């Protein structure tokens, strides 16, 4: 069942300005049809993406979060995406600990010319989120834990459960 | 005293009896105790690995397993062909899947804990050159020697992990230590024709002929080798080569252990010079007597 035929879910995208945002533009210019669920927030660099943003999105009820930056070694800021990769990898490992399905979060690399790739990424991710269905409602009581977790992920520190 | 498991290899029982006996003699003299691997079997040699790698590995692994039973973690063999098989088997068995396949052919599985090294490597790495020097009673002064290593003793380097794959020096250094004049032999690692002597003698004639020619070119009185196959091709087949190429080579081909034993003054009977086909006496005659050498 194509994702756009059912009720929209809430998917937040964080895209770096130079590559992936451009890639999404290229997909638009090429009229590569995509599901409408995704809303994109533009940031200068994937290295600017604080795990806190992702955590906050999920906490506030987003059904999925997609992050995309420049391909490794192609970063406009030389190495921002390496920082991003480290932090996001860490976050991915932490999510299940807090009861969030890690499949609701994904990161990828798309360059400004890869319109088709962007279409594919969005379609696939949206399909995945629709398969998972709407996110279960979240207990705000643990917000403090969440924030602590995000801070640790941003600094690339170890798993919070094991110190 | 260094104690190490010893795998003589099939040729040591036949065509290279003198290599085996001289190896045992020099090791003893240099304080390396060789303990025969009990009930060792053939490593499969080239035929096995050209038929199937698991079969080849299993044939070698049986022997590695025997060494494990001895409670030892190192085995040495004089024969580079055996060495290649033992090391290649161990190298391949680093892949657990392959190891399982190989072990499935065996009664007693091999844990792959044994490192196989050539006797040459053992001598080069574990015996103090000064000790060897001190034990030399008949320096090899006066003889010009070309050291020929054969193609597989050092290749491929990722598996063999000893000396240099294009310009090995272990024998050169040893012979120089004994006082011989080592001529720079450029084809140290070229192939002699390997085991094709029987099925395709013509190949051996050509390849070994090329080596003999290069040896003559650099003015060698004799070859020194560490490989029974090389020795056989160059020595036993030298007459065939002369016939095939209309040549007249008369270059004796020693095992390095024979000359080492000679220099150490080991009983001639154990060195087996009489087993060489090309008469070595002329070459040995070039060695100056110690009195003159000094």
């Amino acid at each position: 069942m194509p994702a756009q035929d059912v009720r929209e879910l809430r998917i937040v995208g964080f895209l770096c300005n130079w590559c992936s945002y451009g890639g999404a533009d290229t997909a638009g210019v090429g009229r590569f049809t995509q599901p409408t669920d995704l809303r994109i927030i533009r940031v200068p660099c994937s290295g600017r993406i604080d795990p806190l943003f992702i955590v906050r999105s999920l906490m506030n009820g987003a059904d999925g979060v997609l992050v995309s930056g420049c391909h490794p070694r192609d970063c406009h800021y030389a190495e921002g995406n390496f920082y991003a990769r480290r932090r996001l990898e860490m976050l991915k490992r932490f999510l299940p600990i807090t009861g969030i399905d890690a499949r609701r979060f994904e990161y990828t690399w798309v360059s400004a010319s890869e319109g088709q790739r962007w279409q594919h990424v969005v379609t696939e991710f949206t399909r995945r989120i629709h398969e998972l269905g709407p996110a279960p409602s979240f207990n705000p009581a643990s917000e403090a834990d969440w924030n602590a977790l995000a801070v640790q992920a941003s600094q690339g520190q170890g798993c919070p459960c094991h110190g | 005293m260094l104690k190490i498991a010893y795998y003589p290899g099939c040729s040591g029982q036949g065509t290279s009896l003198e290599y085996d006996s001289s190896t045992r003699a020099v090791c003893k003299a240099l304080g390396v105790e060789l303990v025969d691997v009990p009930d060792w079997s053939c490593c499969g040699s080239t035929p096995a690995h050209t038929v199937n790698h698991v079969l080849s590995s299993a044939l070698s692994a049986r022997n590695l397993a025997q060494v494990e039973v001895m409670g030892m973690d190192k085995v040495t063999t004089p024969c580079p062909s055996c060495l290649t098989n033992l090391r290649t088997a161990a190298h391949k068995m680093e892949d657990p899947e392959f190891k399982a396949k190989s072990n499935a052919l065996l009664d007693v599985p091999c844990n792959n804990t044994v490192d196989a090294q050539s006797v040459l490597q053992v001598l080069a790495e574990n015996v103090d050159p000064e000790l060897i020097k001190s034990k030399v009673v008949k320096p090899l002064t006066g003889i010009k020697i070309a050291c020929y290593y054969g193609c597989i003793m050092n290749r491929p380097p990722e598996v063999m992990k000893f000396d240099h794959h294009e310009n090995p020096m272990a024998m050169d250094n040893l012979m120089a230590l004994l006082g011989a004049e080592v001529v720079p032999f450029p084809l140290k690692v070229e192939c002699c024709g390997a085991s094709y002597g029987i099925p395709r003698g013509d190949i051996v004639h050509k390849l070994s002929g090329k080596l003999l020619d290069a040896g003559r070119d650099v003015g060698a009185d004799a070859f020194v080798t560490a490989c029974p196959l090389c020795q056989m091709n160059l020595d036993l087949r030298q007459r065939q080569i002369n016939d095939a190429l209309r040549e007249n080579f008369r270059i004796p081909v020693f095992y390095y252990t024979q000359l080492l034993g000679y220099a150490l003054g080991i009983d001639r009977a154990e060195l087996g010079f009489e087993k060489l086909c090309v008469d070595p006496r002329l070459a040995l005659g070039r060695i100056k007597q110690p009195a003159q050498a000094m």
Partner: protein
Amino acid sequence: MRIGVFICHCGSNIAGTVDCPSVAATALKYPDVVFSTDTMYACSEPGQDAIIQAVKEKNLDGVVVASCTPRMHEQTFRRAVERAGLNRYMFEMANIREHVSWIGKTKDLNTGKASELVRMAVEKLRRNRPLTAKRFETTKRVLVIGGGVAGIQAALDCADGGQEVVLVEREQSIGGKMAKLDKTFPTVDCSSCVLGPKMVDIAQHPKITLYTCSEVESVGGYVGNFQVTVRRKATYVDWTKCTGCGLCVEKCPSRKHPDPFNENLCNAPSINIPFPQAIPKKAAINPVSCLMLTKGKCGACAKVCPVKCIDFEQKDELVTVDVGAIVVATGYDLFDWHKYPQYGEGRYKDVITSMQYERLLSASGPTGGHVKRPSDGKEPKNVVFIQCVGSRDKSVNRPYCSGFCCMYTAKQAILTKDHIPDSQSYVFYMDIRSPGKLYDEFTRRAMEEYGAQYVRGRVAMIYPKGDKLIVRGADTLAGTQVEVPADLVVLAVGAEAAKGAVQLGEKLRVAPDQYGFFVESHPKLKPVETNTAGVFLAGACQGPKDIPASVGQGSAAAAKVLGLLSKAMLESDPAVSRVNPARCVGCGKCIQTCPFGAIKEVQDRFGNPKAEVIDTVCQGCGICTVTCPQGAIQLEHFTDNQILAEVNALCPPKMFANYE
């Protein structure tokens, strides 16, 4: 705050699948929005005028335009709001064309999505603050590092363009590799005849200061205002007095040290002028071999020098120069072919490198231009060239093509025939790479007119036989093995990064690639720029390049420098990071993380360490912002609060879920 919202139809581009008036109507409900309308073409003259008019009439202090991608028209609208009297950063865009109307088919879903994107923009705008660019003056002086042909060209072009230039060269003379070459392809003209005059121009140009025997010690500052410290190494000769007469060179008794200029084919005296056309033409003492400096006795040069300029006590000297821009032109080095043991590892004297062969061919070389082989001085008849030595070979970690060796090998084959008419050249090659004007014709000429025998295949081994070297290779076109008895073997060694390039890159904050060549800003569109503003690249330091390309880049880098320094003042982008000293605990994490070295440590008035961003260096990536555990360093225009406002607009926090 008073916000105005403009929803663009873009003809039917947006309006076709988005209900623009309804988006505009919805926007009016958002906080602080006091005006909302839809417009046919927001970017057109009338569209912009309408925005300006609305700002003035409705007294707006912020504008949201929902239209195409900001990558297209953000600047256009920023200039428009500026014309209306607002700060250019009091503006936000919502991308409802590329991200909505062009990719979604369903009108009501598109309309809903467009409304939400507008709401995000509004929420962000509510937290924007006016930002103003800093303006600063630039130092009208250029540093060129490396005096090869690329650096020489860049220096001359900059100086001719009116800028002062400081040229720093590591060796005793400028000229680089080109100074060692005999002739150059594809015209086979004499290398020193074309390069020599340029070198003289460097020496004589009133705007150029030349420091040879010098290296960059440290670099501080930022675009327009770098402070560079240069180490001038001791030459033990007072160059202000030395006339280059060469008397000392003749008299020096210590002559056993290999001569690097002649690629170690011969020895050089301890006091030397590397070659007749050297610039500057001054003598220098090699402290490693000089008898006086190593053993304390000799001094022959000091006795003979007519102007008494020998100074055994001379020390290295540090000079600091202020420059506005830097051109890096440090060139390349040659692959160490000893990594191929099958070529003899140096055991065979008649196996030499291509650069050594250039010296043998050169009239100013050790043999006076007579090709003699090193082992016995005989003239070689069979010369074998082996290409791709240390190039296109993964096993030695050099998978790339060095680009110019095919061409110089063809040149050397031609020159061999010129020098020794009864010689025969053989060239072992894998492919012939000769794109360029007159290049392929040139390699064809080597074969067709000069009879060079080209053999397609690599060489497996070289071994001596008698006084010949047998080269055993493959002829893959004939499908078999070949052997050639050679008198001389010339290895076309590949190019690799210059020694010390990585360390220099660290000082300049220019990243080297995995092989040590400097990375340009964009492989196609910014080939001489780097990611560090004000630092440019020229020549083979960016990747293997022949002389025409190196010179081209030298001029291109100069054009960039002149463009930069032609502005009286530079403006820095105000969307940079800023530290809140009250929150900063001085942990230094941001300093370590910033890829551009844009953060420095300062002390507040109590002596506590604090971070401080250098506006002009910061590139606005925001990596530091995520790193700071205190949230003390915030990237302006993309602060945590601004981005979280967008998140909240999109996914309202549960407790206020129904605030609408």
